[in-house]
């Protein structure tokens, strides 16, 4: 038995343990036991992934019920990379869940679903043939739907979100099924090995590519297939949101990499362009919506759309450059894609766990009613702050390194004789730059409004810090954001091994070296330099602080006024107002201003009410009409069904005759 085999079996065993714990242990200790078993499963997954990434081989065949072939698990290097991500996020989220879950989310069903969800996430990248892949994929979808539904009895929004999620996820499944079917037919087998023999330039390959990419894009939350994301992420329990956003969505990216790098490398030029277009639109649209959103978790969900968009853009750039033989920048772009995957997993876990902690403490997700939490929840504040730095791609976090690599590959990729590339690259640079700028605004807003200044609502004013398990989980996740940002060298080595990129590697003190384009970055050296310039500033500050202590005053300066209420502060809505005005055409916000005049005179105003609604315009312009159309078709179809048993038998009979006719032809 190889180590990889042992690891795979250990995950399954730990999951069985978790299931048993969830079923047997009473509600008082259930969370602790089941959670611990899932943490173990997650760690096993991450370790197995690391082994596979290091080149370890081994396969496990799990028999399932009769009509199907057994599930074959044999992770390769790329799968190993994603196993590490899924396992690490799973372990942290489960740890967090021990302290977080209450009510319906702490039930037997939820803990069992959680165990299966984490296992499925870890095993999807390990699948070695299409059937196993799809089975595990479906397992992942079903278990996550169950988790999402945890709170369905109390809130109608949960039911609606689950419905959207179930429909979209099955649409994605259908597309994947079709795509793999096309590939299997062309390659003569469902194994990934035989599929890889399909010529990338054939029509079948292109058809399969489009189907599969759309299927994976839907799972990954790429605009315009993202509609489930801003509904499901906010309504799920926060540790599940973290898992969904940081790990499950990545499976979509894994799928895209699987298709374009492992199964069908060297496809036509337009494959790359398709990915760049999908990714670019997704990135800009996602971050625009995130910057104007006021629901904290909805904002994080849209930011996921943005980040996945950047990953697709990076991957597409890699493919495009490869198809023109521009190897160095292409390697850098694909490496950037994997850096983004790991970086996003780290900071988005932190952010969702932080948002969960806020929700736990205040009962609020609405930024407009938060504020002043940094004094009341210092650990959450620190963790969320680090996560926000990462999401805003500021030094020295995992997000910064990834975005740096992406921009480097874009700039160096264009320096060629190729016209198409030199048109696409500047546009891509613009998209990435605009995205980065808006992300900055979005996360300054999220952190500043939620944690700084004074509380805007009752919940925020009476908040308290979360329990130990939650704090440890949040700090672990936050530490990984910094660690990946400070020492990205090993990560880049891993990424290079995962996608087979010879021209990237570590340099210096765990710095990264994109040798294909001659760009290197050592965040640790940058930090040292920052520390060096910080020292004199700090010395002056400390000396002065001894001589001149701070004096406390009662109120912020508000023109000397005595009734400065927290309601006069800027809210998340007002913070994003200039931006929503600038992007009026893209966001189409609806604004209602209701003026109530005083009874005595129309010139005196009693109260003014301002309300702003921001709908997802993709949803209102694409999905709503589609759903309305489906409704109409459904109503028409009802006429076929009148309850008469003879009529139903008649349908069957006609169907039989029709089939016979077709067969006989």
């Amino acid at each position: 038995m190889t180590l990889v085999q042992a690891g795979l079996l250990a995950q399954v065993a730990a999951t069985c343990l978790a299931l048993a714990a969830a079923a047997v242990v009473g509600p008082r200790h259930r969370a602790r036991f089941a959670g611990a078993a899932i943490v173990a499963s997650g760690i096993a997954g991450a370790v197995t992934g690391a082994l596979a990434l290091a080149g370890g081989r081994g396969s496990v065949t799990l028999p399932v019920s009769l009509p199907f072939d057994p599930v074959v698990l044999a992770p390769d290097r790329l799968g190993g990379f994603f196993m590490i991500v899924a396992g690490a996020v799973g372990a942290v989220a489960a740890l967090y869940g021990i302290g977080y879950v209450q009510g319906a989310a702490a039930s037997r069903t939820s803990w069992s679903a959680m165990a299966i969800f984490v296992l499925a996430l870890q095993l999807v990248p390990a699948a070695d043939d299409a059937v196993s892949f799809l089975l595990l994929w479906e397992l992942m979808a079903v278990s996550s739907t169950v988790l999402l539904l945890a709170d369905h009895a109390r809130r109608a929004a949960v039911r609606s979100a689950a419905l959207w999620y179930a429909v979209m996820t099955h649409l994605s499944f259908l597309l994947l099924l079709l795509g793999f079917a096309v590939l299997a037919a062309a390659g003569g087998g469902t194994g990934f090995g035989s599929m890889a023999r399909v010529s990338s330039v054939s029509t079948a390959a292109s058809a399969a590519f489009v189907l599969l990419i759309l299927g994976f894009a839907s799972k990954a939350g790429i605009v315009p297939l993202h509609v489930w994301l801003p509904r499901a992420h906010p309504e799920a329990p926060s540790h599940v949101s973290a898992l969904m956003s940081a790990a499950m969505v990545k499976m979509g990216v894994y799928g895209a990499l699987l298709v374009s790098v492992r199964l069908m490398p060297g496809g036509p030029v337009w494959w790359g362009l398709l990915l760049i277009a999908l990714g670019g639109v997704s990135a800009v649209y996602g971050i625009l919506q995130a910057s104007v959103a006021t629901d904290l978790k909805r904002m994080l969900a849209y930011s996921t759309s943005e980040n996945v968009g950047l990953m697709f853009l990076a991957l597409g750039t890699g493919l495009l450059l490869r198809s023109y033989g521009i190897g160095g920048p292409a390697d850098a772009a694909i490496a950037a894609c994997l850096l983004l995957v790991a970086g996003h997993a780290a900071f988005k876990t932190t952010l969702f766990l932080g948002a969960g902690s806020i929700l736990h403490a205040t009962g609020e997700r609405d930024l407009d009613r938060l504020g002043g939490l940094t004094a009341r929840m210092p650990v959450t504040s620190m963790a969320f702050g680090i996560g926000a730095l990462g999401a805003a791609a500021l030094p020295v976090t995992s997000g910064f390194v990834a975005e740096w690599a992406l921009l480097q590959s874009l700039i160096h990729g264009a320096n060629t004789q190729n016209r198409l590339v030199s048109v696409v690259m500047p546009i891509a640079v613009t998209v990435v730059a605009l995205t980065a700028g808006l992300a900055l605004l979005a996360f300054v807003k999220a952190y500043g409004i939620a944690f700084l200044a004074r509380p805007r609502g009752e919940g925020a004013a009476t908040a308290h810090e979360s329990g130990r398990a939650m704090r440890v989980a949040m700090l672990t996740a936050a530490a990984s954001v910094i660690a990946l940002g400070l020492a990205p060298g090993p990560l880049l080595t891993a990424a290079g091994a995962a996608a087979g990129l010879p021209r990237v590697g570590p340099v210096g003190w765990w710095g990264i070296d994109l040798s294909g384009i001659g760009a290197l970055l050592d965040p640790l050296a940058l930090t040292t330099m920052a520390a060096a310039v910080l020292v004199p500033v700090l010395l002056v500050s400390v000396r002065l602080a001894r001589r001149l202590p701070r004096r406390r005053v009662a109120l912020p300066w508000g023109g000397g006024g005595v009734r400065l209420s927290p309601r006069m502060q800027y809210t998340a809505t007002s913070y994003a107002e200039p931006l929503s005005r600038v992007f009026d055409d893209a966001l189409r916000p609806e604004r209602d201003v209701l003026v109530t005049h005083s009874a005595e005179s129309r010139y005196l105003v009693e109260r003014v009410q301002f309300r702003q609604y921001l709908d997802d315009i993709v949803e209102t312009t694409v999905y709503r009409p589609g759903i309305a159309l489906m409704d109409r078709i459904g109503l028409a179809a009802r006429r076929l069904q009148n309850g008469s048993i003879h009529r139903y038998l008649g349908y069957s009979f006609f169907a039989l005759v029709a089939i016979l006719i077709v067969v006989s032809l």
Partner: protein
Amino acid sequence: MSANLFDQLIGLSAGVLLLTSVLLVWKRSLVAAARLLAAQGVALASLVAVIGVFDHDRQLVAVAGLVLVLKGLVLPWVLDRSRIRTGAVREETPLMNTTAALLALSLLTMLAYLVSQPLRVLAPGPTTAAVPVGISLVLYGFLLLTTRRHAISQLVGFLLLDNGIAAVAFLTSGGVPFVVELGASLDVLLVVLILRVLTSRMTVKFGGADLDDLTDLRD
């Protein structure tokens, strides 16, 4: 004139053409539009003159003089007179806001570079290298025509379009016969005069020169 100097002069004229047309889209002031068009006319004339001198083509130098007079002086002047008559100072409500128009501009420029690619591969040289600028001008002119509502802005768009066509013609064929240019110029002059009459009639009729008012005439 050395080839190097020729390169630089062509580049400079083309640059001025491009810059003035970007400013034409950027600025909504109609006062500035007339001045920018005049500057553009001068740049176009210098472009023609440079080609003429380099190719030792007297006729082309004469055409340059014609361009200078017509596009650098007469047309902007007519335009400004029409503007004064309508009393308009700014394009108040374009159909597309300035920011969006500017972004569209960058994409149009890319498009111009893309479509002129075959031509530049066919005959590499400084004049063909500047062809995309001419095509950009044509595209910008269309953009103005479709997104501006004021009659004077329409005129500006039309003139920009015409400058673009002229620039492409000079750059690709290395010159247009004097008679042809004369005819084309007179056509343009005629169109401008007709539009001017139309504008003043509109001002009298509707009290403004917003072309959307013309939809009232449909019934």
